[in-house]
């Protein structure tokens, strides 16, 4: 009886008791969710275009953030440091294509997946050797003050992150839908061979898509880095983005956004209202359980392409 009360009655009473606090929890959740989406976006882009499940996305986030901080520490002004990091990420994409992807064309998904785990180790090691492994503060002048709207406490930084996320997604959507390269990307995602046969250069497309997701990783790295410092644990964010991915579907950009929001809100609400019943620290696995529950009803994720199987 006690347990049922804790699980099914008390949390809802708490919510009804202070709607303002509840709204605050939801908004914090939404804003965290956007941060998750930023990481998940990089995964989706690469998976769409090359069918590679890129586990190294987390390491790319770390690598981009480390490079940016490293450049800034050496006295490079922010705009140049940003541009420099973008260049580094593009160079990295070319390197990955040339050294790795090119040789692994037509391999099974799991082989490519393991190769990206190898890449993950490589990037983590290389980034920390090049720029040092101590915790660094990333400050690129985003205001970080709280203010109140209708009694709800909001944080400027979180709003800024949300705005950046929105801009990024819109840009990507336009890029995918309206430009020639975007159309080529979608063609490659649909069918590698058909795309090749109409003259789309596969290797160039891969470089482009890895560069774009490198830049997305940079944005995610800036946001996460400014929030919690640039350090090794940044690469573990990949593990936070995975449930977002399966929830939204591997192949859907909107899915990554909506999935991120659902996970963000669900996680915060669960932690605050149901966490005490479980003894706390349920954030680590709750997202996965939530995603799993969704998957039971839609095995391809919320927005994934319907899987049609034939014999």
């Amino acid at each position, binding site marked *: 009886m006690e347990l049922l009360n804790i699980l099914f009655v008390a949390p809802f009473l708490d919510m009804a008791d202070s709607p303002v606090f509840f709204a605050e929890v939801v908004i914090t959740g939404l804003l965290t969710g956007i941060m998750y989406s930023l990481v998940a976006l990089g995964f989706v882009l690469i998976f769409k275009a090359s069918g590679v499940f890129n586990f190294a996305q987390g390491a790319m986030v770390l690598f981009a953030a480390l490079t940016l901080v490293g450049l800034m520490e050496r006295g490079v002004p922010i705009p140049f440091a940003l541009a420099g990091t973008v260049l580094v990420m593009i160079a990295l994409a070319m390197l990955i294509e040339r050294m790795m992807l090119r040789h692994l064309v037509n391999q099974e*998904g*799991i082989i490519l997946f393991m190769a990206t785990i190898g890449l993950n180790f490589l*990037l983590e090691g290389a980034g920390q050797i090049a720029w040092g492994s101590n915790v660094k503060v990333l400050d690129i002048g985003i205001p970080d003050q709280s203010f109140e709207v209708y009694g709800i406490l909001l944080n400027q930084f979180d709003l800024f992150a949300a705005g950046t996320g929105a801009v990024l997604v819109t840009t990507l959507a336009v890029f995918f839908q309206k430009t020639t390269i975007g159309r080529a990307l979608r063609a490659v995602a649909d069918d590698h061979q058909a795309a090749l046969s109409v003259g789309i250069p596969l290797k160039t497309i891969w470089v482009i898509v890895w560069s774009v997701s490198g830049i997305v990783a940079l944005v995610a790295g800036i946001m996460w880095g400014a929030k919690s410092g640039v350090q090794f644990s940044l690469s573990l964010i990949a593990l936070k983005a995975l449930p977002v991915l399966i929830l939204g579907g591997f192949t859907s950009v909107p899915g990554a956004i909506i999935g991120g929001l659902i996970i963000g809100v669900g996680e915060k609400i669960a932690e605050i209202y149901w966490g005490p019943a479980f003894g706390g620290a349920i954030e680590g696995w709750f997202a996965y359980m939530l*995603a799993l529950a969704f998957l039971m009803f839609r095995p391809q994720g919320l927005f994934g392409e319907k899987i049609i199987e034939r014999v």
Partner: protein
Amino acid sequence: MFYRETGQFKTNYQKDQQVFPIAQDRVFVALLLIVAFGVVPFVANEYWLQAILIPFLIFSLAAVGLNLLTGYAGQVSLGTGAFMAVGAYATYKITTNIPEINIIIVFLLSGGIAALVGILFGLPSLRIKGFYLAVATLAAQFFILWLFNKVGWFYNDNPSGTITAPPRTLFGIMISGPRATAEVRYFVALIFLVGFTIVAKNIVRGRIGRSWMAIRDMDIAAEIIGIEPLKTKLMAFAVSSFYCGVAGALSVFVWLGSAETEAFDIFLSFQILFMIIIGGLGSIMGSIVGAAFITLVPIFLTNAPALFGLPISTDLSKHIEEIVFGGLIVYLLIVEPHGFARLWQIGKEKLRQWPFPY
């Protein structure tokens, strides 16, 4: 010249169907076993046994288990570490509460408990496939470790939060706990590995193994020819988790001596997945070779700078180790995506024709 089956006639089906149909293979495996049982424990010193050979044997067992699930039944799992943790904690719980039960039986019982947990977390595999399933198995990984950390009952509420191997004897010989000698623990791990490898080999070449492979190759087609996906997939999860559970129990009781949940974190799962991919998916021998490789390389890399007399700080050498390890894995996957098992196969073909390749 030496590796050729000329003149070895099979006169009945039993001979035709045996595990090693070629006499040279049988001799090779027999020699390997003789060395493993009769030479290694008496030659190797404490460090070699404790730091290299025992972990190698235990990881091999886990890798064989995962290969049954991923290589033969085609279900990618990232929850290996958690299933190993289930085995370890179950063993601890049973043997501390009922010390009378023989420790070997406790190991097997814990394997059974791990199998049950495996079935539970294998249920989603009926609905979801591929990478969706792989990520879904991470739920098992994180949830189980959280549970073992949070609920004191699992580690008998001791304040340190670790589980420690109590001393247990078999036929009057101490096989677990701090006073067991490395040689004895090596033998325990070796016997488990050899026994379970034989069982695994015979599972995969029988009816069950064939139904797993059918499911792996195309589950809808397999269903149409009368293989029940529910039974087959869950059986694969159960058997695989059983192996991982026993390996996890061994890793605490005959290797580490005591452990926290961190010993079974997600990197262990990745490591074991590496072993079977580097070794070769769908190959029992490959799992063992892969385990040897993944266990030995980091140890070699850690000791390499000192070996060549290079003064490198531990921090730097850790990162270099990461780079080399990652690079090596990418390189191996590029050179031979099907792992050492395929290399072995190619080598055997070459050897068969040597020295007259026409």
